């Protein structure tokens, strides 16, 4: 955005309404689950598992490990359901999932493994519209692979902050609360992480334009 207009995070009215409705349903399900109904909790799991897996997968770039982290997050959520103090269940679950992902990252530091192996594996390809040209499809796959590799090479702290900000839409203060660091630290990690990503992708910059 060359005119200098900064990123805005405005949501449409429909999104806000849908979120409010979703929060009401989540709150009712939490109430039911607190009364001991496992089905209610599993309904919460069903509603949020795709979102949590997508979030955790970006933080823990290995599908199996991400799945383990998500499962752990749901276990933790069930165990600590009574500690839920209202508000957005989605955000609460997101925080638990991020913590589970960071635990997994710490474990990975002790046992390094390949980052985003799915993008190296031809047996899985990112989904694409049927109408998309094969050339565009190939370009998108190449872009995804390059971005995944660059993200995987970032320090986990920077990657976490960037994902939470760019993908999840958390603001700086929320990320600071989740990661238990100062807001200034979050800002620094995001800005420096973005510059590092750009340096890593400078030779592939054409993939990201247009």
């Amino acid at each position, binding site marked *: *955005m*060359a005119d200098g207009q900064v990123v805005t995070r405005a949501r449409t009215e429909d999104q806000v309404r849908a979120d409010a409705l979703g929060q009401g349903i989540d709150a009712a399900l939490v109430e039911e689950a607190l009364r001991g109904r*496992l089905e209610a909790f599993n309904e919460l799991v069903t509603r949020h598992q795709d979102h949590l897996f997508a979030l955790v997968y970006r933080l823990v770039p290995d599908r199996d490990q991400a799945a383990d982290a998500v499962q752990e997050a749901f276990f933790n959520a069930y*165990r600590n359901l009574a500690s839920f103090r209202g508000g957005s269940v989605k955000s609460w679950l997101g925080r638990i999932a991020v913590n589970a992902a960071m635990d997994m990252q710490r474990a990975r530091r002790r046992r390094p493994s390949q980052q985003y192996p799915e993008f190296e594996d031809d047996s899985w390809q990112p989904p694409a519209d049927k109408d998309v040209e094969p050339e565009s499809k190939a370009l998108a796959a190449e872009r995804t692979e390059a*971005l995944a590799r660059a993200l995987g090479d970032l320090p986990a702290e920077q990657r976490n902050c960037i994902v939470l900000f760019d993908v999840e839409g958390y603001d700086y203060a929320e990320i600071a609360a989740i990661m238990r660091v100062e807001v200034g630290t979050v*800002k620094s990690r995001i800005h420096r992480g*973005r*510059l590092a990503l750009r340096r890593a992708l400078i030779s592939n*910059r054409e993939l990201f334009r247009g």
Partner: protein
Amino acid sequence: MDRTASAAHSSHDELLIARLFGGDVDETERAQALDLMADCPECAALYADLRAIADANAAMPIPPRPRDFTLTAADASRLRRKCHVWSPIFGAGLRRSLGSSLAAIGLAGALLTGVAWFLGGSMTATSGTLMADQGVQAPVAAAAATPAAAATAAGGEPRPGAIGAAPSDATAAPVLGPGANPVPAASAPDGGNPAALPTAEPTTASGQQFNGASPIALFGGENGASGTKSATTEGAASQSGMDARLLWLAGFGALFAIGLTIALLPRLPRGRGRGTRT
């Protein structure tokens, strides 16, 4: 892009552009950043790249979820179970540290007690006695003194273990008070050779001449009066020292075992074992 522009860009603050993109600038900085982007094509390109990368990141496809994460009844039952008894008190790390420390103390104590036990009769007996009962120190030295005097009385060489122990009866070794003249011990009641007596080295109560005897033995008998304990008391004291050693050894052993148990005791399953932060 010409070389002059690149050289100029190298002095520009890329972090300022990144902060502008992240909405983390005040009005002054915003104006500076916009000026940079207006004047420097590379700064403008940087901003465009940051935006493109952020968009691509948000749109990055995610592989399909490998499984369903709903909880089974067994999961729920396991998760509802009470945590392990240690968990409310302290976490795994602290538990292991405490357990290891206790085990180390227990092991060190047991080793020290064992070493002291095996280092030698008079030394360990006295140290054991000292540990057990500070008031029953002398009999250990007295126990050594009596046979020494007996040996002397029998015509043999006096044993240095008797140093400092006052004679409890006629069989005692020679003892000198500070500044006193050496006085031969009383002759043996059984008629032993008195000529052998002068060969016994005179000693002082303060233990100035101890002829290689263990300082601990000296310590045990430094009070001459204490040497008057009877043989019966000696036996009791020796038994008491043995009991004390055993007591200490058992205590340290128990400490070691408790520490090891705390450190190695596996926690009951809680989810998959990791802590919970919500």
